[in-house]
C-alpha cells in the first residue's frame, strides 16, 4: 500500500453510486494489490457505470471482464485473496449470486478456519440488491438472510454515501471475506456529504441516524431512508422516533440496538427482505433474550411478504415494497400503544 502524502479536507456531495465509484477508484490508485473483476466491469464499465474508464486507467490485468460464471468469479477471487491480492469481485445483480453460493459459504467463509489461520481470504464481493426499480424477478432480490447464518462471513449494507465509502474501505482492509451490499434504488436517489480523503468506518457498528425517545426503528437499505422520512413526518405530530441504521448485518451491533431499545422501550424493525427468517427475526430474538424487561410493547416487524419474487407489474412491486405511509402508520400505532 502506498501512503497518502497529504489528507485532503472538506466534504463533497455525491450519490451512493458515485461513492462506490470514487472509493473503488481511490483503492485502485492507493493499493496495487486491489483489482476489480466481474461481468461487464471492463469494456462496459459496469451496468451502473461504476467502473467506467477503469479499464483504460488501470489496464486489463486489474480490471477483469469475466464470463457469465459467478462460481468462477468468486472462486478465482478466493484464490487471488489467499495468495496475497485484494480482489473486489462483483456479482452484477444479487439475483445472480446463487451459483457462487458454494464458493462463498463453503470456501471463502471457511478458509481461515480450515487452514487454522494459515490462510485468510481478504476479498470483497460487491453486489447491487433490492427492488423498487421495476427490476422484476431477476433484478430485485434481497439476499442478506441467505448468508447471515454463516459464521466467517461479514455482511455490510451501508445506505448513505459517507457510510459506503467508510465501509467499502474497511471491507477492502478486512482480512476476511466481506459481502458488500448496495441497494440499487439508493444508487442515484440518495445523495449526501462525503468527507474527503481516506477513512474507514468500523465493521459491526450501527449508527443512530436520528435520535428519538418514543420508539426505536432499526432498518437499512432503501427502507432506512423511508423510515427517516416517516420519522420526520411524525415529528410534526409530536412523536419522537429514533432511527438506527444497522449498516453491518453481521457482525450485528447488539450494543447500539439494545441501548436504543432500553431507552425507548419499543422496537420496530423494517427490512425489504422477506419477513420469515429475515434479519428482523434475529434482532427480535436478541432483544427478547437481552431486554425483555425493558420492552413496553410487542416487537414489530415490517418486511417483504413471503412470496417467491417481486413482480414486474407496478401494483405487485408496490405491494412487495413497504411504503413510507405504512411505516408512518406502524410507528404511530407503536408510539401510542
Amino acid at each position, binding site marked *: 500500500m502506498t501512503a497518502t502524502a497529504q489528507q485532503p479536507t472538506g466534504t463533497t456531495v455525491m450519490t451512493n453510486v458515485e461513492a462506490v465509484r470514487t472509493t473503488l477508484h481511490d483503492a485502485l490508485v492507493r493499493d496495487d494489490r486491489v483489482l476489480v473483476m466481474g461481468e461487464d466491469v471492463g469494456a462496459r464499465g459496469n451496468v451502473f457505470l461504476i467502473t467506467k474508464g477503469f479499464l483504460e486507467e488501470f489496464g486489463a490485468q486489474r480490471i477483469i471482464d469475466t464470463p457469465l460464471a459467478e462460481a468462477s468469479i468468486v472462486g478465482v477471487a478466493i484464490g487471488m485473496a489467499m495468495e496475497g491480492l485484494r480482489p473486489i469481485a462483483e456479482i452484477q445483480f444479487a439475483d445472480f449470486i446463487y451459483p457462487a453460493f458454494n464458493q462463498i459459504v463453503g470456501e471463502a467463509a471457511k478458509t481461515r478456519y480450515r487452514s487454522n489461520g494459515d490462510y485468510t481470504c481478504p476479498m470483497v464481493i460487491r453486489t447491487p440488491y433490492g427492488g423498487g426499480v421495476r427490476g422484476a424477478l431477476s433484478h430485485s432480490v434481497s439476499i442478506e438472510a441467505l448468508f447471515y447464518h454463516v459464521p466467517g462471513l461479514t455482511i455490510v449494507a451501508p445506505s448513505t454515501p459517507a457510510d459506503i465509502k467508510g465501509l467499502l474501505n474497511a471491507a477492502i482492509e478486512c482480512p476476511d471475506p466481506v459481502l458488500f451490499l448496495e441497494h440499487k434504488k439508493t444508487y442515484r436517489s440518495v445523495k449526501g456529504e462525503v468527507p474527503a480523503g481516506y477513512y474507514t468506518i468500523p465493521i459491526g457498528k450501527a449508527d443512530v441516524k436520528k435520535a428519538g425517545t418514543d420508539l426505536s426503528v432499526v432498518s437499512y437499505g432503501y427502507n432506512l431512508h423511508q423510515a427517516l422520512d416517516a420519522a420526520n413526518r411524525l415529528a410534526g405530530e409530536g412523536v419522537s422516533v429514533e432511527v438506527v441504521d444497522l449498516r453491518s448485518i453481521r457482525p450485528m451491533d447488539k450494543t447500539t440496538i439494545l441501548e436504543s431499545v432500553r431507552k425507548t422501550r419499543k422496537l420496530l424493525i423494517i427490512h425489504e427482505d422477506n419477513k420469515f427468517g429475515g434479519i428482523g427475526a434475529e434482532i427480535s430474538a436478541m432483544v427478547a433474550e437481552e431486554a425483555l424487561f425493558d*420492552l*413496553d410493547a*410487542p416487537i414489530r416487524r415490517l418486511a417483504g411478504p413471503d412470496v417467491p419474487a417481486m413482480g414486474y407489474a407496478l401494483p405487485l412491486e408496490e405491494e412487495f415494497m413497504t411504503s413510507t405511509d405504512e411505516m408512518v402508520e406502524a410507528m404511530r400505532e407503536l408510539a401510542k400503544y
Partner: protein
Amino acid sequence: MATTITMPQLGETVTEGTVAQWLKKPGDSVEKYEAFVEVSTDKVNAEVPSPVTGVIRELIVKEGETVPTGAAIAIIDDVAAETPAPNGSPSPSEQVAAASSAEANRQGSDEPVPGGNVGLGGPSYSAPSNGAPETIATNNGANAPQKAIGHDGASINGIRTSPAVRRLAREHQIDLTTVRGSGDNGRITANDVLAAAKAGPSAGVAATIMAPAAAGAVTPPPPAASVSSAAPKTGSAKPSYANAQPGELIALTPVRKIIAQRMVESKHTAPHAWTMTEVDVTNVWKWRAREKDAFEKAYGVKLTLLPFFIRAVVESLAKFPLMNASFTDEGIRVHRDVNVGLAIAADGVLVVPVIRHADQLSVKGIALAAGELIDKGRRGKLGADDLAGGTFTVNNTGANGSILSAPILVPGQTGIVTTEAVVKRAVVRDDDSIAVRSMMNVCLSLDHRVVDGAVASGFLSDLKKRLEAMGPVGSL
C-alpha cells in the same frame, strides 16, 4: 335456560367444599368443560369445569366461603337462554352439579371411579337436551371472548401489562391498580408507571411490603431503612447496600393458606412435647438390601426402609393404643383403625396421604400402598380420600439428610414420628466391643394432652426394639 351449578363432591367422604377462587365473573362467557371455579377441600384443590356452555349469571357463593356439597354455588345462563321464553315466564332451571372431571362429563357417568381420584366420583348431571352441539358451535362463532388488542399481554389483577411495566412497577413499588393508563385502550405504559413513581410508591403496596419488616421484632430494620420506608423520597432512589430493599410479595395459594392455617391450629391447640431415640438399623438395612432388587423387579416399586419402619410403628401402636388417639372436648377418642399418614412433598407442597388399615398390611403391602400414594402425589393425582382419615403420621425427614427434626402434629393426631438419615457410626456394644453400625435417629412429637412422657417413651423404646429385632432374615 338457566343452569344452577352446585358444589361438587370431591371425593367419597367429602361433605363440603370451599370456593377458593372464581375463575369467571358474572357476564363472562364460559365454554362447556372450561374451568370456571377453583374449589378446595381438605388440602385438595380442584378446578371445576362448567357442565354447560353459557354466560355466568350469578355467583352465589363468595370466595373463601364453605358450603355443603350439593348447595347451589352459581347460575349459568345456557346458550339457549339467549332466546327469551315466548310467554316471558322464567325458564325452568335445571339442577346441575358441577362435575369435576371433563372425562366424567363426557361419559355421563355417575359411577364412583375406583381409586378415589379427585372428583371422579362426583354426581352426574343431566346434559341440556335442546340441540346442544349446534347451539354451542353458533355461540363459539358469535360470542367467543375477543382479545382487546391484537397482542397477548400478561395481566396483574386483570390488567394487561408489558414486561417493562411489570419490572418498573416492582422497582418503584407501584400498585398498578392505582395507575391510570394512557396507552391504547387504557393500557398502562412504562411512562405511566414512571409518572406514578414520581408521586412516590403506592401507599397500599408500601404498607404490605413493609409490614413484615416492621413486625419483625427479632431483627429490627436499621433506622435509615425505617425512615426511608416511612417517608418515601420523591424520584427514584437508587438501591444501595445500606438501604433495605423490599422483597417480592408472593401471593398465598389456597394450599399454602390451608397449610399455614393447619400448622398454626396444631401448634396453638396441641401442646407439643418432643423426644428422640437412636435405633440400630444394621440388620433391617441388610434385609432391605438383600430384597430390594428382586422387589423392585417384581413390583416396580423401590423398597426403602420406610415400609419396615411403618410396620414396626403399627405394631407399637397396637401396644400403645393411646398413641393412636385424638383429644376431643368429650374425651380421648382411641381409634380402632390404624391409618398411617405419610408426609411427603408433592410439587413442592406438603401433603399427607394416608395408608389405611396399615396394621393389616405386611411390609410388602405397606411398600406397595406407600409407593402408590407417593406416585400419585408426584403426578398431582391425590384425591381427598387419599388424604383423609389419618390417625398417626410418619415423616421421612432423613430423605433430605436430616438427622434431627421436631415435626408438627397433624391436627387431631397424638403422635408423629420421623425417620432421620441412616448414618454409619462406631458404636460401643454391650460387651465393650466397638462396631461399625448403621444408626438412625427417630424423633417423636406428641400431644401432651393425650399422653405423658411415660407412654411416649414407652412407645418409642418399643418401636426401637422392634426395629432392631427385624431382619436380616424373614419374609416381607
